[in-house]
């Protein structure tokens, strides 16, 4: 059973069976959600109504610059969300690792990856989160790291809890970790969410279901990996991120 087998929720856009995987398609399909996805209520007044302009970019275009963040060095423990406070956070300790790849499958080394998430209780350490679940004083839920020479990132954290939101009656988000990835050109900038395998909330979540093609939704779900799992210590999950191609990378 995979996410592919699951029907989309009625509120989401229909999947496009005509989309082909990149191996058999000359131009990669657009896997991103549309701006307007009414099942996710907040899109209704925030989705632009005009189609975007597609300007020709020259190789010197400002959008192709490599964003610098050197004034904010990454600390040695920033990748470990369980060691940011005096005590250990409550919850199921996990390892999340994978690679950041470019549109041609090449690893992206030395790029910044930021993650943030709810605590095991489903509560964010954010002042506006009103979910009546306990905050964990030993968990902020923010981490960062740079990818290594093979494009690998690795975080140690706590499995985030699910939480309710007010999008529709009895709305719950599947457990997820937010990811922010830079790449080597500003046009590759990506913010997304990583989910956990087998979550029963998938078919009910308009944010995940906003991704039109079920195969693309499946690529937002991490895989349990016994090789990443560390005996007597933590389960391991693997998840790779593929960034968009820049105009001058395409063949």
């Amino acid at each position, binding site marked *: 059973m995979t996410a592919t087998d699951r029907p989309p929720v009625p509120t989401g856009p229909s999947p496009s069976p005509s989309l082909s995987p990149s191996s058999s398609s000359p131009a990669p399909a657009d896997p*991103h959600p549309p701006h307007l996805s009414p099942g996710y209520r907040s899109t209704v007044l925030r*989705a632009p109504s005009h189609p975007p*302009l597609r300007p020709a970019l020259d190789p010197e275009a400002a959008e192709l*610059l490599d964003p610098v963040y050197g004034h904010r060095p990454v600390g040695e423990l920033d990748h470990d969300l369980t060691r940011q406070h005096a005590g250990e956070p409550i919850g199921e300790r996990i390892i999340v690792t994978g690679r950041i790849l470019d549109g041609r499958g090449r690893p992206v080394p030395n790029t910044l990856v930021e993650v943030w998430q709810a605590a095991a209780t489903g509560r964010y350490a954010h002042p506006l989160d009103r979910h009546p679940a306990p905050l964990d004083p030993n968990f902020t839920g923010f981490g960062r790291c740079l990818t290594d020479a093979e494009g690998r990132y690795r975080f140690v954290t706590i499995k985030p809890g699910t939480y309710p939101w007010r999008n529709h009656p009895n709305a719950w988000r599947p457990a997820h970790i937010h990811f922010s990835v830079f790449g080597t050109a500003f046009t590759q900038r990506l913010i997304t969410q990583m989910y956990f395998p087998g979550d029963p909330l998938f078919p009910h979540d308009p944010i995940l279901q906003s991704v039109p093609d079920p195969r693309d939704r499946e690529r937002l779900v991490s895989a349990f990996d016994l090789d990443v799992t560390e005996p007597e210590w933590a389960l391991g999950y693997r998840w790779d991120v593929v960034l968009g191609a820049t105009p001058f990378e395409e063949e």
Partner: protein
Amino acid sequence: MVPTPSQTVGPFFAHALPYAEGPLVVPEDHPDAIELHGRVTDGAGEPVPDALLEICQPGLFGRCETGADGSYRFRTAATDGYIPLLVFGRGLLKPVWTRVYLSADAPFLAEVDPARRGTLVARKEGERSYRFDVRLQGEDETVFFAF
């Protein structure tokens, strides 16, 4: 390879992504320092209090979240070209891209629908102060880009 799909930044990133120096892209005494500020509003004209804005210029990167009134404020360097501006937010399943032009004379603007090109030009409010509002939807919707 097909890129990983985008998902919304959500409402609860303010304890994670913003940092104190994020909006202060250049030092105060930088010869080209300008203040770039404005508001992000939705299709009803209401402020968007949970947006995250990023700009990228040669050797520079800035990040600023909006306040309760939808406002943001960068200190960055003036340019003859444009400043790419990326806006993330709750309700934005993927970010919107725009460009901040400090001058209405930039040649590229001639390619943009005259009725809408003004949304790409920052309004000069003082010697070193520019205002650029982002209207996500509706009347005067900002011109957004895709690459």
